[in-house]
C-alpha cells in the first residue's frame, strides 16, 4: 500500500482503537465493555492491514471476534450486574492505577521515540502468506510445536480447573459455599 493509503488507514484506526480500548474500562454495562474490546482489537487488525501484513491483519480479525464473544459470554455469566443498570462502580483506586499507566506510557513512549531504530527500509513488500508458511514450517517449526502444545495443556488444564468438583473431584456441597473454618 502506498504511503498515503497507509496513513489514511493507520491514523483513524489507531485513534479508534485507543478510544474504544479506554472506554472498555469506563463503561458501566459489561456486555458493552466486551464488545468495545472486540472493536478495539478488531480495529487493531485493520492497523495490521495498513502496515501491509495482510495475513496477520485478517487472522487478527478472525481470532478476536471469537475470543471476545466468549469473553462477553463469561462476563454476563459471572458478573452481579451485567446490564450495568444498577450503576455499580466496579473499580478500585482508579487514581493510582491511572498514575501508573501514565508513567508506563511516558517511559515506553520515551524509549520508542528516543532510540534510533535501524533505518526505515522502504520495500512495501511485506512477507506474504507463502513466506510466512515456509517460515512456520521451516525455521520456527520447533517453537510453533511448543506453542501448539501450550494451547493443548491450557485447554486440558482449564477444563480440569473448571470441572464440577475441581481437580480432585470433591464436589462442593450444593447450596452453601465452604465456610471460613474450612469445614466443607
Amino acid at each position, binding site marked *: 500500500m502506498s504511503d498515503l493509503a497507509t496513513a489514511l488507514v493507520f491514523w483513524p484506526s489507531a485513534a479508534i482503537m485507543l478510544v474504544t480500548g479506554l472506554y472498555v474500562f469506563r463503561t458501566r454495562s459489561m456486555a458493552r465493555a466486551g464488545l468495545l474490546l472486540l472493536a478495539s482489537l478488531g480495529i487493531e487488525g485493520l492497523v495490521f492491514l495498513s502496515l501491509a501484513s495482510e495475513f496477520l491483519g485478517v487472522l487478527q480479525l478472525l481470532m478476536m471476534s471469537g475470543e471476545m464473544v466468549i469473553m462477553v459470554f463469561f462476563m454476563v*455469566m459471572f458478573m*452481579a*450486574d*451485567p*446490564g450495568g*443498570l*444498577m450503576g*455499580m462502580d466496579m473499580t478500585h483506586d482508579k487514581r493510582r492505577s491511572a498514575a501508573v499507566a501514565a508513567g508506563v506510557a511516558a517511559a515506553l513512549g520515551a524509549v520508542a521515540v528516543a532510540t534510533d531504530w535501524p533505518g526505515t527500509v522502504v520495500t512495501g513488500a511485506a512477507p506474504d502468506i507463502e513466506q510466512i508458511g515456509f517460515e512456520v514450517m521451516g525455521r520456527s517449526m520447533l517453537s510453533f510445536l511448543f506453542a501448539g502444545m501450550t494451547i493443548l495443556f491450557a485447554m486440558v488444564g482449564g477444563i480440569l480447573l473448571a470441572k*464440577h*468438583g475441581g481437580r480432585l473431584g470433591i*464436589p*462442593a456441597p*450444593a*447450596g452453601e459455599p465452604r465456610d471460613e473454618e474450612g469445614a466443607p
Partner: protein
Amino acid sequence: MVVRPLRPAVLVPDEQAWTMAGVDVQAAGFEAAATPAAASVLAGPERIPEELASAVGEAWELICEPRRVEVLGDPFAAGMPLLEALKERHGEHAGMDHDEHAGMGHDHAGMDHGDMMEITGEPSRDGLVMEAADVALGPLSPALPTGLVAELSLDGDVVASCRVRATLEARRDALAPRAWAAATGDLIAGERIVAVELERALSHAAWLRRSAQLLGWPLLADRAGQAVAALVAEAPESIAFDAARCALEVSRRLVESRAFRSRTAGRAVVDAAGARALGLTGPIARASGVPEDARSQDAAYAGLGFEPVTREAGDAAARAEVRAEEAVAAVDLAQEALGADLPAARRSTVEGPRGPIRHGTTPGAAEAVALAGGLVIGLEWSAALAALASFDLSPWSVSAR
C-alpha cells in the same frame, strides 16, 4: 398447491380457534406474526371477551402505522365489540408514552439478582448458581393458545419454575363449538356423531399444525394444514373425506417418525395412576393407558365399530400419537355415520376433542392446566414449550357452575 404470499398479522384468537370457528386464516391471506412489531394487521373477532381486551389493546399499540383491523368472523360469540375495545383503550391511553409493556409476552427485563456481590440461589445442573430470568407468555403469545397465560422462570435456558393459568371465563368453549352444542342437546343422534367426529378431526389437525409450527417443522405443518383445509367446510356432505384422510395419514406417520419422537419422547410424563388420581380425561388420560372414553358407552358408536385409542407411555409423544390416530379414526367414523341411519338416542355426555363435555363443563380440564406447569420443570426452553403444547390445554377456565 401454490398459495398467495401470506402477510404476518396479529391473530386474535390464535389460528387453532379460528379454524374451529370455520375460518381458514391462511386462505384469508394471513399468518401469525412473531411479535406485534412484525405485523401491520390485527386480524380479530367481531366480539372479544373482556379478559382479552387489555392485551389486544396493548398489542394494537405495538403494531406500527400503517396498520388496520381485519374482522374475520365471530368465534367467541360473546363479549364487547372489538373496534369499541380498541377505541376505548386508545382514548383512555392517548397520553401514555410508547413504552414497552405488551400484554403479549410482556417480558420485562427481569434479571433480578440477590446480594450485590454474591449471586445466591440453588445451583443449576452443572453446580453453578446463575440468576433466574422470569418470562411471562401473555394471553396472545404465538406459543400458547389464546387466553392461556404461563409465567416461567428460566435458569439459563432451562425452565426452573412454571405456572399456567387459563384466563377466559367458561361461557361457550370456542375451541369445540359443535361438541358443546351436541352436549347441550341441540343435535339428534346421526347428525350429532358426524358433527362431533368431524370437529374432533379438525381440532386434532389444527393442534398438529400449531405443534409443528412450534417445533419449526414446515413439512408437518403443511400436511396438517392440508387436512384442516379439507375438513373446514360448511355442510358435512361437501367435505373431501379421502383428501382429509390422506393428509391425516401422512401426518400420523410423521408424528410416529424418529424426528418427532426424538423431540417429544420421555417429556412431561403422566402415568396411569397419576391420571386416575387427578381425574384427567380425554387424549391426555388415554395416552397414559386410562382407556376411559365417553363414546364407548354410546350404542350408536358401537354400531359403527368404535374402540378407544390408547397408549401406555403417557409422554408428549404418546399424546401426539393418540390425537393423530383419533383424527384418522374420526374421519372414518364420520363418513360411516353419514351413510348409516342410527338410533336417535339423546346423550347428556359427549366426548369432545379434549375430553367428555357434561352439563357445559369438561371435567379434568382444570386439573390438566394445573398439572402441565409442574411437568415442564427441568426442560430446555423449546422442549418445555413443545411439552406444554402436547397437553392441548383449553384456555377456558372451568368456573364451578
